[in-house]
């Protein structure tokens, strides 16, 4: 049967049904089912978050000043972003203003995490959807060296001997039976288009990126006191500054600031010499593979982030843009008010929760997290062994958030489309430059590759912004301001009896919001709407499909039983299911088992 969704997709659930469960190289657990027609095109897509998450409920009754420490444990990657969102929400509720240095330091940490996440995502989670490390063993090191010098003349590591060494290391690793990191690939699938030399170059950078990411996180150690799990503080940042004398142990001094500065420079170098050239070089071989755009050409949402001045989140103050685009109209960028009960609402008609009333949407301040697990009548299999989910009924642990009723894409591509549509100077310049270099039309942005490229551009931009805020911090300190925290309202006796607040950030994978209600000094309600809730959302009561589902539509699969294309597109969102839902796996050692039915 063919059904047209209100957001413009024709869903046809006849044809071969393919189940990918779990989807690997993501944080958390997710399942995806598609229907493929006789020509190999995906005509229906169903994305299921297979985990229950109850973060909201475990925070009830806790001290709001501690919420960041819990949210930091939701998952293994966005620790700092959740913590930042949490302290912002609590500060908003209690009317706490942070000092200028705290704003700069938070921005540097957030930008640092953005770069770290983008680099790790591209090289360690996503590259293997485009790059074939096994094919790299067949490369000629000399030709690889020539390729490297052509795509990035200023990258110092480019000699034939260097690539030969890496190739030998890789060979030993593979021969020792430890394919480990590279197993479960579909290495002979024709969807892989790179020549062996490009594969070797990219695999080499996989290793270089591993070394770099170790360095990048040291910024969190310096400002957060430790890493993993850096410390955060309601009212500012938990690191004292003392640049004039020996000062307290652990205080930020010039030596530490110099270290931060050198790490920032390394990020900038890597983005310029390695990351961006790789995306352009690899993308060049896939220019004809422009699937995966999904909702990006019609509905994008960004809350914006990186405020120029502390405590001011007005859109013109934000370096990462805020706005909403709907109905594919790039000429109008709507402002977004996360407090407005009419704008952001979560629906649960197709999610395993209940509100007691069908078709109802709730703003996060009034959010309810009440589980209701039930399966539809068209389910194939049993409750404990689902062969095929019934998407006509409830089918996911992810709620369906909507902006004024629209399903939205969030993330680097959404941010870049919003920025481009708004005429954001840096973003527009980057986007037009990239399209010119690659000789591609604007429409090419609306694709899986566009998402991957936007992430690289953003990493580059964030590198520059990091430097900007570092200079701002140092100037402010030199002018005599060493304040990093405002503790005037630390004591709960200074708080109102009841208060509510919201914290917003742009996490690496998209718009992130925490909504908190505080009563008698304790958390009364806490709701997180995370990026993967937006992107991975199931259908809503109107039948609109979510961003993951939309992105898979009408993609051609080379071999339906080898879901390279599905993984490629889903990975381009950098899904993080651990925070959008909660985890359980019956047997965690299961890897991608594609079940074709």
């Amino acid at each position: 049967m063919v059904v047209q969704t209100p957001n413009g997709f024709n869903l046809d659930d006849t044809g071969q049904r393919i189940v990918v469960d779990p989807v690997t190289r993501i944080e958390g657990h997710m399942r995806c089912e598609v229907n493929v027609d006789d020509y190999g095109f995906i005509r229906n897509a169903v994305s299921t978050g297979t985990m229950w998450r109850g973060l909201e409920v475990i925070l009830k009754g806790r001290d709001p000043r501690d919420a960041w420490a819990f949210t930091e444990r939701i998952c293994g990657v966005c620790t700092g972003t959740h913590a930042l969102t949490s302290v912002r929400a609590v500060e908003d509720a209690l009317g706490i203003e942070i000092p200028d240095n705290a704003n700069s330091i938070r921005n540097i940490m957030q930008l640092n995490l953005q770069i770290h996440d983008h680099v790790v995502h591209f090289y360690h989670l996503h590259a293997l959807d485009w790059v074939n490390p096994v094919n790299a063993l067949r490369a000629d090191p000399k030709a690889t060296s020539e390729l490297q010098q052509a795509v990035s003349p200023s990258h110092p590591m480019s000699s034939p001997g260097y690539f030969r060494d890496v190739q030998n290391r890789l060979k030993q690793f593979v021969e020792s039976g430890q394919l480990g990191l590279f197993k479960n690939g579909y290495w002979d699938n024709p969807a892989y288009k790179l020549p062996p030399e490009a594969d070797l170059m990219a695999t080499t950078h996989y290793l270089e990126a591993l070394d770099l990411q170790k360095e990048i996180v040291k910024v969190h150690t310096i400002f957060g006191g430790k890493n993993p799990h850096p410390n955060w503080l309601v009212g500012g940042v938990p690191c004292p500054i003392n640049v004039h004398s020996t000062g307290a142990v652990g205080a930020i001094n010039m030596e530490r600031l110099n270290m931060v500065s050198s790490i920032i420079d390394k990020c900038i170098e890597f983005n310029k010499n390695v990351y961006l050239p790789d995306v352009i070089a690899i993308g060049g071989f896939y220019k004809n593979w422009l699937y995966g755009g999904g909702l990006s050409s019609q509905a994008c949402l960004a809350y914006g982030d990186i405020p120029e001045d502390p405590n001011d989140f007005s859109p013109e103050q934000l370096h990462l843009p805020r706005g909403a685009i709907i109905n594919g109209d790039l000429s109008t960028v709507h402002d977004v008010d996360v407090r407005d009960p009419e704008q952001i609402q979560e629906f649960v008609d197709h999610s395993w929760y209940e509100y007691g009333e069908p078709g109802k949407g709730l703003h996060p301040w009034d959010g309810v997290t009440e589980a209701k697990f039930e399966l539809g009548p068209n389910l194939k299999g049993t409750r404990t062994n689902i062969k095929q989910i019934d998407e006509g009924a409830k089918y996911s642990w992810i709620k369906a958030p909507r902006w004024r009723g629209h399903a939205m894409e969030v993330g680097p591509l959404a941010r870049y489309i919003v920025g481009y549509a708004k005429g954001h100077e840096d973003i527009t310049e980057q986007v037009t430059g990239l399209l010119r270099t690659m000789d591609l039309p604007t429409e090419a942005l609306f694709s899986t590759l566009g998402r991957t490229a936007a992430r690289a551009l953003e990493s580059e931009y964030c590198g520059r912004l990091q430097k900007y805020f570092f200079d701002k911090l140092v100037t402010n300190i030199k002018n005599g301001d060493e304040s990093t925290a405002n503790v005037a309202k630390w004591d709960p006796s200074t708080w109102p009896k009841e208060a509510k607040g919201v914290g917003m950030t742009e996490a690496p994978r998209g718009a992130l919001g925490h909504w908190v209600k505080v009563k008698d000094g304790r958390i009364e309600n806490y709701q997180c709407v995370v990026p993967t809730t937006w992107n991975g959302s199931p259908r809503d009561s109107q039948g609109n499909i979510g961003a993951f589902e939309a992105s898979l539509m009408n993609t051609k699969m080379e071999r339906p039983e080898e879901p390279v294309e599905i993984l490629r597109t889903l990975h381009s969102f950098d899904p993080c299911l651990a925070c959008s839902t909660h985890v359980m796996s019956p047997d965690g050692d299961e890897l991608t088992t594609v079940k074709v039915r």
Partner: protein
Amino acid sequence: MADQVLIMGIGNVLWADEGFGVRCIEHLAAHWELPEGVTLLDGGTQGLYLLPFLEEADTLIVFDAVDYGLEPGTLKIVEDDEVPRFMGAKKMSLHQTGFQDVIATAQLMGYCPTRLLLIGCQPEELEDYGGGLRDSVKAQIAPAVRVALSHLAQMGHVAKPGRTQSDLLADPSIMHSAYEDGRPSEDDACRIGDARFFPAAE
């Protein structure tokens, strides 16, 4: 420089017995004074973020909740080459980077610690979000710590009763007792999950 030893607890404290490894580290810090050259780390679920710590260590001792299919609360100790194989049982870390992938990556990069010791405990309950350790697992913290201490002693690192200060532990608000005692009631906080994995919840 003498051998550097890293003692790390991994797992997610928010999922009941998954927090075993992290709680062992807490216990060690609270009850033992460790000699120079021994570092304590709450590794959480940080996956690849842990590489820099591996690079600096010659010996790695890991506490973790591992599903071996044994009686709940059973300790199992494996060493060196056996470690990755036994850690393959689950993945809950950075983007599905199980800890065995972290070790494989460290080996690929040429800086994996030469000695590995895994002190694993069979969990009783993982499917309880927001919950704490079950008694069977909690009872194994002290014995697990003793195993680590005796291995340390064999290497010439003798611990004394006391405390160890470390920056690398959890924030006080999610330390063992604060976390478990502050848990909201079952009425306030739904504790059931996906029936595919919780058939008993029907």
